[in-house]
């Protein structure tokens, strides 16, 4: 047994699935017929990010500086065989997990935060703005901005802001500023608060505030999920997984991951799309976008500032229950992922908070890692899948999108 050099595992290019989709991706569409929200992207996104959003290239070179930063924050992340979990489930196959919780910020979100902040800095941007639901994206943005010597402002969904004080502390430690959304800082936030001063906030509202704030101040906006560029950057997860499996002499029969906006699942699974690997995307039952949502053009943000995208959606005005997995509360899912689900290439599951909590406990007690509440949904699906006699003998790989060490207040005494 030898240790494989990290440089051999990290790919030098991101993978863009668009040229390989079975159908054309429906283009972004303006919500207001009088205005071009696509043109607006010129104002809020770094040029290179926008170019990548609409590129026809299957691969995009990863700049050397970003590779260096990837190595610094813990990439490649480990691919671990969950032997203890296999034993407790009596599973006569293999379970592997890609541990994105092993990055410096504890989740996959840093994979796209780094290049977005890098390109912003290259264009002379002084500050980036974004939203965060569970806090993982805000944490990643704050670190990526600081590593690139730029400032960051983060609008955090109020319910998470109140539930997760440690997130605010980490973001502050990394040098970012957080505000509870809806806030009084933006016109849209004030409008929401005027109607409901106790509004718990949604990711859609926080996105609206971040975009509005970036526009007003002339800063750049960082995209946490859904958009194609983000999915492309996240392909580093799946590409590393492929190489690690190859080095181990393994191949995946089934890939499982959780879905909020869809970036971790897409980044993990899309590099396998040409193979026959089964793919299962798990959403929260409380946010049933795949079983009860429609495949339609819908707004990304609640205010309708950004272009509409065609995706599975519960409607941009959907106010999800205050489940702890804040990262799964988003009303829609990335267009490429939605298309592959509609086509039947990717299957879906929905898991309740209660069931995901059980899975969190099982995984913590067997593998010693406290999974993020979002990732626990994927683990619940893995457990069900491996208990099914039909699946015995298979090799199951799931994406542990983040750790839950900052979510421990969820655990009842």
């Amino acid at each position, binding site marked *: 047994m030898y240790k494989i050099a990290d440089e051999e595992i990290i790919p030098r290019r991101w993978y863009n699935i668009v*040229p*390989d989709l079975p159908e054309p991706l429906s283009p972004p*569409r303006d919500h207001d*017929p009088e205005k071009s929200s696509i*043109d607006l992207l010129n104002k809020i996104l770094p040029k290179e990010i926008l*170019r990548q959003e609409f590129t026809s290239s299957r691969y995009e070179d990863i700049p050397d500086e970003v590779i260096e930063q990837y190595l610094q924050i813990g990439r490649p992340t480990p691919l671990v065989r969950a032997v203890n979990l296999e034993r407790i489930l009596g599973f006569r196959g293999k379970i592997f997990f890609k541990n994105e919780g092993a990055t410096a910020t504890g989740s996959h979100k840093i994979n796209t935060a780094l290049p977005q902040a890098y390109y912003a800095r290259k264009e002379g941007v002084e500050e980036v703005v974004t939203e965060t639901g569970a806090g993982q994206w805000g944490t990643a943005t704050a670190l990526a901005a600081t590593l690139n010597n730029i400032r960051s402002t983060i609008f955090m969904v109020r319910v998470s802001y109140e539930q997760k004080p440690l997130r605010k502390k980490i973001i502050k430690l990394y040098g970012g500023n957080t505000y509870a959304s809806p806030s009084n800082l933006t016109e849209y936030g004030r409008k929401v608060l005027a109607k409901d001063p106790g509004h718990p906030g949604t990711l859609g509202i926080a996105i609206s505030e971040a975009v509005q704030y970036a526009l007003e101040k002339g800063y750049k906006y960082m995209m946490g999920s859904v958009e194609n560029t983000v999915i492309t950057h996240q392909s580093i997860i799946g590409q590393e997984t492929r190489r690690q499996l190859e080095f181990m002499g393994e191949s995946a029969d089934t890939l499982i991951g959780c879905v909020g906006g869809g970036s971790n699942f897409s980044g993990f699974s899309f590099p396998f799309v040409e193979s026959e690997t089964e793919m299962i995307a798990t959403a929260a039952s409380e946010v049933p976008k795949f079983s009860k949502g429609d495949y339609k053009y819908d707004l990304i943000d609640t205010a309708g500032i950004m272009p509409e995208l065609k995706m599975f959606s519960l409607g941009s005005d959907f106010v999800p229950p205050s489940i702890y997995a804040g990262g799964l509360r988003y009303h829609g899912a990335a267009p490429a992922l939605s298309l592959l689900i509609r086509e039947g290439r990717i299957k879906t599951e929905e898991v309740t908070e209660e069931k995901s909590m059980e899975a969190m406990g099982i995984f913590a007690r067997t593998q010693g890692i406290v999974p993020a509440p979002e990732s626990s949904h994927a683990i619940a699906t893995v457990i069900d899948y491996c208990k099914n006699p039909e699946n015995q003998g298979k090799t199951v790989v799931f994406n542990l999108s983040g750790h839950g060490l900052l979510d421990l207040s969820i655990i009842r005494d």
Partner: protein
Amino acid sequence: MKLALYFTFPYPNRESFIRFFHGSLNHKYDYLELGIPTEFPYYDGPIIRKTHKSAGENYSENLLRETVKEAISKKRKVYTLVYYNHFKKDRKDFLQNLKSMGFSGAIVPDLLTDFFPERFELVDAMNEEGLSLIPFFTSSTPDKIIRDVTGRTDDWIYHGLQPSTGIRVPVSTDLMVNRIRSLCPEREIIFGFGINGPEIIHELKASGADGIAVGSSLIPSMETDDMDSFHREIHMLEEGVYGE
């Protein structure tokens, strides 16, 4: 290189349209694209979208027939740009009518994205009427779809350079031209969407594009009834396309 001019028919109104159309015939161009006004031209940018409303209010089939006839007599091939959503219900009549007016074919921007399963059905229906479907591709069209649709059609290809008409986001022109060229090496490829100015025309020419289609950049002079500016704009296009 070839030049295609696009007009939403009959923007801004019948009388002005005729004057601008006649004005355009004083210039050299190869293809005339006439946009049939529709209620919600969602894949167009705000400039073209705006033209659909007044064009819709002034629409006249007789005038369309005369326009096509005149353009053909001046050696232009005439195509329509029309949303499938607009004619899906009475497809047969609509296509027969197009043919009888003298159109060579149609560009259908929503076909591959919104009516993907019906793509070959429409190709066949158009072939039956002696009309060409001009494949409309963008950077989001997957390779396999480009190959499949190219294999079932034989006229030129329209490639959108931008996500919608009349806007400019950063794109790698070279990369885009090379990609589509490698997927359909034998076909004439005309680039449209967001082409306004000599720089991008030069870039496309240098990259090996076969032609450009221009629409949005002609609208401001038509909107303000400024014939001089209209001529200047087309002259600039002519120089870019046919000049050294």
